[in-house]
């Protein structure tokens, strides 16, 4: 079924469409455009058809990638353009197609139940073919500090001797004020329904808390999103269960993680109310 090569230059997912139930499996199938696909010749382009009803013919990883992809992209009540980083999803999808990642949690059963949920979302054609340049100035664009990768180094913190004799800072003097436009500030803040979310600076800590299922960084993120205290445990648990969705690889950026969390919350009965 899946034979052919995709790479990051193929612009896979430039467009995605539900094409109805092609193979009478009682499930919609997807057409995904890759305008610069090289399988038929350099940059000839291709449309990939993904049959959602044949789990056995796809690796679990592919299903999983698709699942993430759709959760984030399709089942959203926001206009696709408001998603900060579609490119992220693409790379995530590709990563997963090409990398073995055994994820025991997504059993066939949960896949099926997810699929049923998705059916409701996939009415009509949803175009995700947004050129990446459209996001250059958007919240979460590369200039907003979203670019922080997981496990970024800590060596750039300036001379240690200095910092400790003077307890000083050598960056821009700050006074707890954020500045900037487009919902992003110089210190890597992004806005989420009008709230400021600072993910980049605490992403390492947050990813650890998500993996462990709880922690201070988890609480901090929950507060920033506006999760009520009584829903914090549920939030923590849901994030914990979806670690691989939020942090699909070590190359994930804060913006991508945030987008993935948004998708997860939208598909969660309890947390959907926080997705503004």
């Amino acid at each position: 079924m899946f034979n052919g090569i995709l790479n990051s230059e193929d612009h896979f997912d430039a467009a995605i469409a539900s094409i109805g139930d092609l193979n009478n499996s009682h499930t919609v199938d997807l057409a995904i455009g890759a305008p610069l696909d090289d399988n038929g010749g350099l940059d000839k382009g291709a449309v990939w058809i993904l049959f959602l009803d044949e789990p056995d013919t796809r690796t679990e990883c592919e299903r999983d990638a698709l699942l993430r992809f759709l959760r984030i992209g399709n089942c959203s009540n926001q206009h696709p353009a408001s998603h900060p980083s579609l490119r992220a999803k693409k790379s995530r999808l590709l990563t997963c197609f090409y990398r073995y990642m055994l994820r025991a949690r997504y059993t066939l059963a949960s896949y099926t139940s997810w699929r049923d949920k998705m059916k409701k979302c996939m009415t009509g054609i949803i175009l995700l073919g947004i050129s990446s340049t459209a996001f250059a100035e958007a919240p979460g664009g590369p200039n907003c500090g979203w670019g922080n990768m997981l496990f970024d180094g800590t060596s750039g913190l300036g001379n240690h001797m200095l910092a400790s004799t003077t307890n000083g800072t050598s960056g821009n003097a700050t006074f707890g004020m954020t500045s900037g436009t487009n919902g992003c500030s110089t210190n890597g803040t992004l806005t989420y329904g009008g709230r400021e979310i600072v993910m980049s600076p605490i992403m390492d800590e947050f990813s650890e808390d998500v993996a462990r299922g709880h922690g201070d960084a988890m609480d901090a993120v929950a507060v920033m999103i506006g999760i009520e205290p009584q829903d914090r445990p549920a939030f923590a648990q849901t994030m914990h269960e979806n670690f691989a969705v939020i942090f699909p690889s070590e190359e994930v950026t804060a913006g991508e993680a945030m987008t993935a969390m948004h998708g997860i919350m939208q598909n969660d009965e309890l947390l959907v109310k926080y997705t503004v």
Partner: protein
Amino acid sequence: MFLKYILLPVLASLLASTSAAATGNSSYIRQLVQRADDSKLWQHREWLNLGHYRQSKIFTSSYSSAVDDKRFFYSGNGETSPRAELNATLAALFSEQPTGNEHALCRSPARYDWLKQHLQIDATRLPKPVCSDYIEWRSHIHAESVTLVFPTYQLNSPSSMFGHTLLRLDPADDENWSDWLSYAVNFGANISKDDNSLFYAWKGLTGGYPGQFIVMPYYEKIKEYNRIEKRDIWEYRLNLQPAEVELLVTHLWELKDINFAYYFFTENCSYRLLELIEVARPGIELTDEFVITAIPADTIRSVEDAGLVESTSFRPSQETVTKQMIADLPEDDYTLLEAFLEQPLDSQTAEFLSLDEARQQALLATSYKMLRLRQNRKPRDPETASKSHQLLEQLSHYPQAPDPVITPPVRPETGHLSKQLTLGALERDGHGYSELGMRMSYHDLEDNEAGYMRGAQINIIGMVLRRRNSTGTVFLQSANFADVFSLTPRSRFFTPISWRVRGGVERVYSDDKDRLVGHVSGGGGYAWPLLEDGTVYSLLTGRLEANSTFTHKLEPALGAAAGGLYHSTIGTGRTEINAEKFTGGEYRINFSLTQNLLLSRNNALQIKFKREWHNNKDFNEVGLSYNFFF
């Protein structure tokens, strides 16, 4: 043409300020100034606090402000005259100029509130500038209570050995909040990036840097101290009431971008924070006792003595947490942990899979922590990043991971006080001596360890005088500028270096008698744990000595030292043998045994035996001393 464009607005604004409304105010301002003068308002403690004025101890009519910044003052001689500053502030509050955020009402909300309250200022006569910056800032600062934060010592960075203090502004308890998001108020030097490291340290010590208050999210500080610098953090929630906190916050705004002189030992972070607390709660006196040094632990004590501390909590560093996690692992799993760290990750081995779920989870979690700790202070490395990610991913398949249980150590402010006085009697090579010693700070390896980091010796500025009993002559035995020893035991997973360095003048046996020599001595090596409460160490040492009997006035020596330290409830015991030989041929071998006997928190007896071997003589020294901390 050019002139006209510039002059016109200037003239217009001059005219505006002398308009009818303003002249009406000028008599009102005169009236207020008169009222303030009559009641000597400028001498009020609260006003002096707001201007950071210190009254001279000798000429009591003379004041000077710690603020080193013209922008802070409305009066040209505001820095030395609280009275002129008060009057100028009144005028500035009523002035129509400048407008907006630069207006005195926007810049000095705390001063305004205070003056308004004490002079019953008629607010309707004031201009109405729009303070958009202040309003925006206040919308970020949720402050109902204040926590004093004390990141403890970090031995491997000499200059942070005393610790640091900062404040944290917290919202009301019932607010949906996380203290990670609270704002930290930090006083530190404002550094230019071009300075090199030695220059930094020097300027930091001597006041060459301007200091400023900086407000930043607390998670930045948690990252800085808990993670990057591996320092445990103590948090002391203060019982300041919301109104007092409000005063602190409004005054903090007045200090935005304002320069103070920064001195590492005296007017440092801790000192300035105490001043802020004094502003918040007028009437308490926290800073007076810190004329010579303001060591963070002492400032914590002074805050506690003033009855300000409501509760205390401990935030262990990443290293503390990791060490606890390793200690919690069954020792059988150490080989697997090592394999996880050193080799490409493979969690599908039969050995790993045979463990129960909790042990698997603990191994993964500990490996991750360890890996991150090793990656500390390093730039991103794709291999480690990938491995870290894999570990987390696998960890995420387990149920919620439990936190390691960490027993907080003895609180630093409950440890012995910082200054030390020593009285001693000894016999050296058959002669009797009595001894008087004084140390400004802080802690010897042998001293009462409660509240201090084990294996951390930090002594700054100390002096010992001796009197030879037979002749009655008194002489300088030693004067230390600094004496630091970092003894950190190695283990299977942590391999730190131990080191020591000290410098000053001291009397040593050389050639034919005890002579006063100048020296810098140091050493580096390893230490290992011995049983539960012991440490043994060995170091390679070097010494540079200025000695009048040497053929060269300055001679280096090379040597080695080995020793052991044993902590027990009666007090710490220490033994050391060290040998060194100078390039000119002189050698010195010392063997010493010291036992500290604790009498109470601040009182101890110390017994010392020492044997020395020299080129032409061997002899013993036996002594008993009484150490008192204050």
